[in-house]
């Protein structure tokens, strides 16, 4: 007689928590969107804290914590410390959590101007002057890039943690995905600027597949030379202001994109050039 493998009980399954900071919820939705895999995920982990999915809450500590969003308020500065204390593995998901997100554009502006313009009673707004990545505040075990993240990469990360191995998420450039799909390089063939060569893979090269330049949702590729690309694009006639806009999207505060947009903007300021 064979002994049947016992089904993991709630008591033995790793506890998964999903916490949200300043973000649009799109990355959490990627997990809910996983549909077929979601049931399998629910079968192998105990979903202990995931407000977007269920109001049933279990206390920590948590084995696997997914953190979405950036730190933009004094309250969240404290809260992320508490999340870290309760988490064995803390994984950031998405551009907000890994690089500050689109809201990091506030880092170049005066936050007072924004609160005055947006809110009827700005005195009730408690916010920081900056939007910063989770890793600027606490130790992060793994960063999952993207705006939004790729659900298959998220499932790969969960699988790898459960199997006790390193996640196999790709770090090559978007160009490699384009070439393997048979996409023609739009920068070379049409002159339209594209961040693909300096952007990490993850989306499967969606934008170039639909004939538009990559705008860097998955953040800078490993060991790339962003200045070489921006210098080349300027030599080929791209407007510097256009490149600043291209670099200041969802990953504007990621180091290579930040350095290049600041460098180009500084040069424009020196030349009094504000053309778009």
């Amino acid at each position, binding site marked *: 007689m064979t002994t049947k493998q016992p089904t993991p009980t709630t008591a033995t399954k790793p506890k998964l928590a999903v916490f949200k900071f300043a973000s649009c919820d799109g990355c959490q939705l990627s997990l809910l969107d996983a549909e077929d*895999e979601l049931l*399998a*995920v629910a079968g*192998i982990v105990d979903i202990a804290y995931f407000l977007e999915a269920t109001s049933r809450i279990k206390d920590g500590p948590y084995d696997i914590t997914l953190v979405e969003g950036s730190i933009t308020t004094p309250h969240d500065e404290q809260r992320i410390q508490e999340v870290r204390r309760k988490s064995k593995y803390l994984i950031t998901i998405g551009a907000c959590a890994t690089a500050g997100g689109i809201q990091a554009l506030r880092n170049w502006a005066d936050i007072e101007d924004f609160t005055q313009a947006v809110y009827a009673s700005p005195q009730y707004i408690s916010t920081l002057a900056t939007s910063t990545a989770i890793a600027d505040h606490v130790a992060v075990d793994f960063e999952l890039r993207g705006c939004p993240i790729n659900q298959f990469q998220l*499932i790969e990360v*969960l*699988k790898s943690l459960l*199997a006790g191995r390193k996640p*196999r998420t*790709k*770090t*090559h*450039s978007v*160009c*490699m995905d384009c*070439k*393997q799909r*048979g*996409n*023609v*390089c*739009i*920068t*070379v*063939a*049409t*002159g339209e600027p*594209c961040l*693909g*060569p*300096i952007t990490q893979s993850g989306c499967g090269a969606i934008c170039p597949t639909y*004939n538009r330049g990559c705008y860097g949702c998955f953040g800078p*590729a*490993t*060991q*790339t*030379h962003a200045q*070489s*690309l921006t*210098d*080349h694009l300027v*030599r*080929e006639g791209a407007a510097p202001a256009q490149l600043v806009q291209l670099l200041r999207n969802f990953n504007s505060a990621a180091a290579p994109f930040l350095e290049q947009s600041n460098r180009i903007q500084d040069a424009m300021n020196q030349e009094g050039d504000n053309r778009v």
Partner: protein
Amino acid sequence: MNPETTETECVFFPKIELQSLITLLVGDGYHVVGPTIDQAAIVYDKITSVDQLPRGWTDQQEAAKYRLERRDDDALFGFVVGPHSWKKYLFPPLTTVASAQKTESGWQMQTPEPDTTKYAFLGVRACELAAIAIQDRVFTGGPYVDPVYKARRSNAFIIAVNCAQSASTCFCTSMNTGPKCSSGFDLALTELEDGFEVESGSDIGAAVLGRLTTQSLTAEHSTMAAAARQQAVDQQTKQLNTEGIRDLLLGNLDHPRWKDVGDICLGCTNCTMVCPTCFCSSVEEVSDLANENVERQRHWDSCFNLSYSSMSHGTTRNTIASRYRQWLTHKLGSWENQFGTSGCVGCGRCITWCPVGIDLTEEVAAIRGDAAPKPPGGAA
């Protein structure tokens, strides 16, 4: 093959007969793949009609720049090579090489049957014939024959086309691979105003040619075809001095130029993806969440990726400069030790499709110490 002998074996068929050739091959069960316009470039895709060919179009190429332009005639093959190469059919970007399913009685291992699709490649240029010959050695020349490549390659019918022009990025004359197609084809065409000079290069090619309506080649056609081919030679401006190139590169591993080009190179892999001879791949297991269905997948990879030299002790080539040096010294140098030929056919794709315009011929010239080399990637 003796060129003089070849010339006398040529026949002529009018332009309309090219459609007969395509139709005949489709009828024989071939997937005919040829040049066609898509995404602002001339790419290779499945075709069934001559109307899908880039009639009246040409390509202008330089470092990091490719543009389609109208010709002032109706030439069907009046361009050189684009971003695609035939390797995407012979060595597909993604292949499942094995799979395993967990069952009640244990793991069941399976090896998929190789894809035996019959491809007919229309419009293969001389440099591309050389590239296919190089990949033949890589994948089938040694004791370990690649079944995926072999199945596709052994079924392929190759219709070569002689170039009648060169791009500014072409340097096949330096690599002795073209522009004239000399071997490795079933049929070879030279396009003339009203038809094609046709040469068969194999028994199967001759048999197909025998089923078409051909005419004997007139002296005038022969002269025009030779002039068209000579025009490609005359237009070629780029050169790569290959004299002692292996020892030159491998003897200059500490040359400061590697750092210069390493500072410009993006490590983006475009050169290796468009290269018709680059063959690097990685194999990995992909499983479902329950780890009960596993596929072993082979996909194109690149020596420009940091992960490609990642081993248990860490990463061997941890800078872009070291990865560029690895690629160029292998392509033009140690490839000779490994496979007995250069790994470069002079097609110029890596120059055109480098997003920052790095030109390997300039890099070699700089290391050789030739007068006033240009900075990498055309930087001012």
